[in-house]
């Protein structure tokens, strides 16, 4: 799974959670909650669904790293690399 796949996966999940928005158009460095008007339940749904799709459990302390698209991709890449290693 490369970074582009991860980005597409996150956008796909976000599209389900916030169908009225266009996640593919978000600024990757901006807070997803502000960009897509997500609330805390949307945010946790996104984190758990992405985690389930990748087979990893994201601990609560790491949630802040998933706040932006860029941050989420970087975090998940690291987790997958560590898992593979």
């Amino acid at each position, binding site marked *: 799974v490369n970074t582009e796949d991860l980005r597409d996966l996150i956008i796909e999940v976000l599209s389900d959670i916030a169908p009225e928005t266009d996640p593919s158009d978000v600024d990757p460095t901006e807070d997803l909650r*502000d960009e897509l*008007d997500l*609330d*805390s*339940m949307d945010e*946790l*749904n996104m*984190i*758990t669904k992405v985690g*389930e799709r990748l087979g990893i459990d994201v601990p*609560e*302390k790491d949630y802040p790293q998933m706040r932006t698209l860029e941050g989420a991709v970087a975090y998940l890449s690291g987790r997958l690399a560590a898992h593979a290693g």
Partner: protein
Amino acid sequence: VTGVTACASLVWRARRIGAEPSVDDWAGLCGPDVPRAAGLTHPAAMTRFVVTRALLRATIVQLRPELARTTIAFDVAPSGRLEVVDHPELAVSSSHTGTFAVAAVAADGPVGIDVEPLDRGELPRPEAWLTPQELAGVTTLDAHTPHETDLHRLMLLHLWVAKEAVLKAWPGPGTTGRRRIRISCPEAPCADVETARPAAGPPGRGAGRRDDRDATHGPTGASWCGDGEAVVAPAAASAVTSPSGPGADGPTLDLGVDWFVIDAHLVALAHRHAPARA
């Protein structure tokens, strides 16, 4: 009101704000809120910001009538907590969903408030945010009511808003996690929402404090305004949270949690346990 520990002002639909002569005049934004509001790009976010700030001011004035609404300013502390400028003794909290927003203020301890529509869609996987005890409670309820999927969802929704309210009330540095917050008697509120009538509860859990609650004011000092029918859910619970997790060593916060149903929205108010009324 003797014994008031918190005051919640619960909202009317945001669309009504358009009927006001001037949103700016009505809301009375001042201090750091002005540049903060100007920086919001989404119209919905701007509306919510204005509404919740106005609600907070209205609620503060209910609790502290000597304060002039137009002079109440807010600032965000480095911890992210919203504070009332020049009034560190006041704790405030707000929440919104769709066209609803709620606000709460307390003068004697932490306060947190959260709102979700009763028909809120899919909730996050319970294992991601419930404690083992809460998961066991959900499992027990499911075993007794295997076909009551709506009851199951309502129970989870009660737990969700309660935890969010407690998170907002948490006064310590940083935040504690949802799985470090334990909501007591989580099996109670679902049935209560369905019946929506006062019921006796165990001492100290809050339900027993509701006997003299009326439609607009209760022992916890909660009140609301708006065009929705307000129903006082006759259930309450305690919440214990700790950076180390419930039951672990370290500081803990013991809060009361009350639930309200207003116009198909579920509100949880977390606050310091109320003293006995005089």
